[in-house]
């Protein structure tokens, strides 16, 4: 069915509704306190962005820059690890024969439905018992290590490798004497780059946005992740929202860039994952 004028109109309203909070964040992040107290509300961006940003980054009790740096470290390490380990496992499940393969794959799918969040109390205790002074709580390890693999990643890579890598190609490489790891690097990885791009984007976004577990394990430390730092910015009796939202703007920007650059891939990735699951 071709789209009518009403279709376009309704969809435009949906897009406007989706974009409005982001626009509003920008409006507030660029204005002064006086402008924000006005009624009717200020609806246009002001010229205070640099001032507000400078305030965020120079705050004494919230180390926003370092927290951003931590977010970059955590998200990059987790993304790289998920891509590597989940592609390896996905390759094994899709193209290698071994005893118990099907049963183990069913386990992977089942683990996708386990809500990790409900184990936070025990996870916190476990992290406290990890080797090292005082365990891992309060360190980036506590946030990074539980994210190193995801069941969704294994599932997603397996689905893609099933179709994208022909069995004949794997066989041919074996006959040429290639080891399994060699086949992975020279045959599988080049063929699944698009899927890795999608999984990488989705993993990065999810890790960057994580809040509950980082709050529990890093809350109260000087250098948490940027999401926890944002909640610190918004705590207290006298909160300056132009400052909070200037910080939120900075913490959202990398993801907006990702959507801008890889939007088409992210859309395709979500839709492909949906059809097959």
């Amino acid at each position, binding site marked *: 069915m071709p*789209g009518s004028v009403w279709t376009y109109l309704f969809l435009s309203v*949906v897009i406007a509704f989706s974009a409005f909070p982001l626009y509003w964040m920008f409006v507030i992040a660029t204005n002064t306190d006086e402008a924000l107290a006005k009624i009717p509300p200020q609806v246009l961006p002001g010229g205070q962005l640099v001032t507000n940003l400078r305030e965020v980054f120079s705050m004494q009790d919230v180390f926003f820059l370092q927290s951003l740096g931590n977010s970059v470290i955590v998200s990059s390490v987790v993304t790289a690890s998920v891509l590597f380990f989940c592609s390896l496992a996905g390759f*094994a499940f899709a193209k290698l024969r071994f005893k118990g393969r099907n049963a183990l794959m069913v386990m992977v799918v089942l683990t996708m439905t386990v809500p990790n969040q409900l*184990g936070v109390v025990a996870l916190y*205790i476990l992290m406290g018992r990890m080797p090292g002074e005082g365990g891992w709580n309060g360190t980036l390890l506590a946030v990074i290590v539980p994210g190193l693999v995801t069941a969704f990643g294994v599932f997603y890579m397996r689905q893609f490798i099933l179709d994208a890598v022909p069995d004949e190609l794997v066989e041919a490489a074996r006959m040429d004497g290639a080891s*399994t790891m060699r086949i992975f690097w020279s045959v599988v990885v080049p063929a699944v780059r698009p899927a890795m791009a999608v999984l990488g984007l989705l993993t990065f976004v999810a890790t960057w946005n994580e809040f*509950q577990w980082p709050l529990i394990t890093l*809350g109260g430390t000087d250098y948490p992740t940027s999401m926890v730092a944002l*909640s610190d910015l918004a705590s207290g009796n006298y909160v300056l929202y132009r400052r909070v939202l200037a910080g939120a703007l900075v913490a959202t920007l990398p993801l907006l860039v990702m959507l801008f650059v890889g939007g088409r891939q992210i859309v395709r990735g979500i839709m492909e994952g949906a*059809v097959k699951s």
Partner: protein
Amino acid sequence: MSTTRAAPETPRPGRDSGATASRRDRPYEPGPWRTRLHRFDMRYVPYLLIAPFFLLFAVFGLFPIVFNGVVALRHWRLDDPTLTGWAGLENFRRLFTDDDFFNALSNTFGIFLLSTVPQLLLALVVASLLNRKLRAQTWFRVGVLLPYITPVTASTLIFSVVFARDTGIANWALSLLGIGETAPIDWRSAKWSSWIAIATMVNWKWIGYNALLYLAAMQSIPRDVYEAAAVDGAGPWRQLWRITVPMIRPVVIFTVVLSTIGGLQLFTEPMLFDANPALGLGGDDGQWQTVAQLIYKVGWRDLNLGYAAAMSWALFLVILLVAAINALITNRLGGGRK
């Protein structure tokens, strides 16, 4: 030293025998060391490839949930490490008489209903519009994903400002419609208003994502089914309910289960809607305190990890129950077999 390839001790069926046969054509014959290496590669390397996933998941995913059950049966206080030991069912018994828990549970359900139902209905409508032949198709699809990639932390702080009593744009917009002109709505003061505000945030975030899931399923419905329905005089609305929804039922059930699991664990939105987020109170009287928030408060503010673990186990069971009931209802609504 023999250059002939050692015969496999036990001939293995299937693909391996084929590989052995074709290897005979090759001019180069591997030595015994290479053969052993090859056998190791074929037999054990697959397990090495999947081992990192299972090991990490077992330690940091599965174990905590099981161990949570043990913690729930013990006294476990962060401020007094000596106060440990078996508590039996004490933590669970306490749960049944805890007004805070039942308040949080009813808040969670209230917000869950206000967010899930409109969210999935609107996602259906948006998806069916996106499924039409559109110009700038990609642009629209990427556009509806804006909320999905926005950190909940950031968007909740924005909505906090939008729903401010005196200077918020929500009240200003309502006053243009003649609502609350004399006394602006204090969104945080009452249950109903805070639930609506939080549900709005959840709806905002997930409509586009769910719409894409529906759209993916809709694209496999053959066009001529709609053409036949149109000839029979079915309008777009009827087509959506009578054709589209039944035909994409698996995905609808999937999203219902997914949003049940997510909705009942709601944490970030209620936390940051508060003026003092780190306390986990959910309003002065806990108007919008969710169970996940209460778990945080009991565990890391009151430092009673044992009781918090019991709560999270109770929540886990509630989620399983509700997800199962929802899947069942959805299956029937969509015209599934009775």
